[in-house]
């Protein structure tokens, strides 16, 4: 039993760490550390930096421009990026569509799309959820009807994260309405610049607008943009959802977020006494730190198992739930820490160069983050769906 990384792995970690220290722009890490919002330029700047280093499409094989890392390396990279408050790589092209094309795409699709993902020429978003198909993803209704060499697609997608920046969307669509719902779904690639596609932002509870509704009105999709076989889309969708689940708990980001929160907590006094002298508050913080450390080890155990067996088991569902809960709890403790100063909502304070804060440093986005982070237990398979999965796959119920 040995919880530490091997010398080789530690060397790799140090390489990543050094690289991030030298190359991660401070204005990006500061935005993340403070919980501020990133814009399109921020993401692209970070993508450009990683691309130069060859670390952008981490799960791709070397022949397509990936670094060829193993499970542990990918995990270490994830964690280090999180700890360094690096922006996340927008996953839709690099970590979702890419692996699907690599496994199920035609040679033509791979040759055309993968380089465009890597170069940033195409910015992809995900067309999975629909207004009527959330947890019941397979209940989707967007239809694709074949006409000669193309499909005509009609429907609506929703919760499309960062869809406002995308020029491409991969969609699950119904190609056969007459069979069991999972068996009539296909996986297609659509062009967002098509006049039949319109995007509406959804303003969220925290006042942010990074998710969208996407309306699809008579959009023609060439048969060449069908991925794999018609009506086999559910298989590809599931592959996408369970791919690379070792990073699902976001331990690096959670740890960085915890450290940011702790910094805020440490700076608070109430009526002349350090906040941490309040035993209830100290207890809250300690509990969370313990839960976080437990999750870190639980995640390592899963990575070690995946490194041995090649694929993470059903415990990735547990980690999804834990990861969401812990990140939510961190925002909860943070909002408590600043007391009445959780109340002010000053939109300009979400900009990095805002220099006239109300209340304690970094207090401005705290309440908004608390509300925004509710999404972690909803998106990517809600807690309820994860528990259904684990009850079945993990416990055999």
């Amino acid at each position: 039993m040995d919880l530490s990384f091997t010398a080789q792995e530690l060397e790799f970690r140090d390489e990543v760490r050094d690289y991030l220290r030298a190359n991660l722009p401070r204005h990006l890490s500061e935005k993340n550390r403070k919980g501020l919002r990133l814009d399109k330029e921020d993401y692209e700047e970070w993508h450009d930096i990683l691309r130069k280093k060859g670390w952008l499409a981490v799960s791709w094989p070397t022949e397509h421009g990936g670094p060829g890392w193993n499970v542990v390396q990918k995990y270490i990279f994830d964690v280090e990026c999180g700890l360094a408050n690096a922006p996340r790589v927008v996953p839709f092209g690099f970590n979702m569509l890419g692996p699907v094309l690599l496994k199920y795409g035609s040679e033509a699709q791979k040759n055309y799309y993968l380089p465009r993902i890597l170069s940033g020429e195409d910015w992809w978003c995900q067309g999975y959820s629909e207004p009527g198909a959330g947890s019941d993803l397979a209940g989707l209704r967007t239809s694709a009807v074949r006409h000669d060499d193309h499909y005509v697609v009609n429907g609506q997608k929703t919760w499309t994260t960062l869809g406002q920046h995308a020029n491409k969307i991969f969609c699950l669509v119904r190609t056969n309405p007459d069979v069991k719902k999972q068996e009539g779904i296909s996986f297609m690639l659509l062009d967002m610049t098509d006049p039949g596609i319109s995007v509406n932002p959804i303003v969220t509870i925290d006042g942010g607008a990074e998710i969208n509704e996407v309306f699809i009105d008579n959009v023609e999709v060439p048969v060449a943009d069908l991925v794999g076989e018609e009506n086999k889309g559910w298989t590809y969708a599931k592959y996408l959802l369970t791919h690379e689940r070792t990073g699902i708990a976001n331990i690096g980001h959670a740890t960085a977020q915890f450290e940011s929160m702790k910094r805020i907590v440490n700076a608070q006094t109430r009526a002349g006494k350090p906040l941490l002298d309040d035993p209830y508050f100290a207890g809250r913080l300690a509990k969370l730190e313990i839960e976080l450390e437990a999750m870190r080890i639980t995640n390592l155990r899963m990575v070690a198992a995946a490194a041995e067996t090649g694929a993470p088991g059903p415990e990735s569902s547990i980690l999804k739930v834990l990861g969401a809960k812990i990140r939510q709890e961190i925002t909860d403790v943070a909002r408590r820490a600043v007391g009445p100063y959780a109340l002010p909502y000053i939109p300009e304070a979400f900009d990095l160069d805002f220099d006239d804060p109300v209340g304690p440093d970094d207090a401005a986005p705290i309440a908004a983050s608390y509300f925004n982070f509710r999404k972690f237990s909803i998106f990517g398979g809600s807690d309820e769906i994860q528990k259904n999965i684990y009850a079945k796959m993990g416990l055999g119920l």
Partner: protein
Amino acid sequence: MNFNHTEERRMIGDALGSWLRNEYDLDARQRAMDEKAGFSHKAWRELGELGIIGALVSDTHGGFGGQGYDIALVFEELGRALSVEPWLASGLMASRILGECGDPGGLLSDVLSGETVVALAHGEPGSGYDPRWVETTATADGAGFRLNGSKAVALNADTATRLIVSARTSGAVDDAHGVTLFVVDAASPGVKVRGYATIDGLRAAEVELTDVSVEASALIGEKDGGLGAVENALAAATLAVCSESIGIMEVALEVTVEYLKTREQFGKPIGSFQALQHRMVDVATAIEQSRSLVIKAASVFEEEASTRDAALSAAKHYIGVAGRLVGEEAIQMHGGIGMAKATPINHYVKRLIMIDHLFGDTDYHLERYAALSR
């Protein structure tokens, strides 16, 4: 034993409830928030005319109510509508302080009619939730005083024409004795008010006082003896937000249950899934228990401060926990749609959670309860 309000109170509640249902849906609320003051002066005056503000103050102090049950009744209705008008700041706290301490400027009747907005500027950047912690000083200056200090997150202080400012005239920074109250014109030289919206739809302000000169007549109540009136006002406000939470939680429950009944996934209403059912029962239970504690707090509101405050702390602590449960479950059960600002539930949840940040959070009140009940 009787859990029905008196006829008279029911009439107030009905009047308020039907006005709000007719005039104050979430769109109207948004328009109110979009006004410069962050609330609707028109609504405020109309509700003043209806006597609702007066119901929050006793007849000896210029109103015609003001008991615990009055506050509970009015604020539960306000919670259901998420009214953003200056209920806590002006309608409740300022009016009760003016009523209790005397009202040399003759402000109270205009406050109760909704003509004038007066705000309480008491909490400070360093005070946390401790009402005794007053760093702001008032030093004698001829016949009057000179005020210096900072006040934090003072509700509606950006719109109020007058501020009730607490300042230390003697004692250590956390002494109960030595706090004096002044009525300060918000336009006085040396008063700097920085207003902002709060995340739950209200307005508040940071108030900087730099050598603000006030005359002796600005002093209300007794010199050095102002804290009691502030604590009484905070007690009323604590009861108010607890009651407001009840209204909010009831709406959250209704809206969420309705959603569970209509939203279908996997070919049936999601409310037919047992895991969600049981969690909704926990939510409903927490609301019933919260309501019971608010009834209790209202029932002893006129008793001595230690009895009153123990019951208030019990309610506020419990609602801090229950509010979080109810709010978070409401969003989780709504799923993605619960995250959208256009969905009504999110406004209710924001207010519900942020009430934990007013007048002492759940930890503060548990600690106070434990101390008072030993």
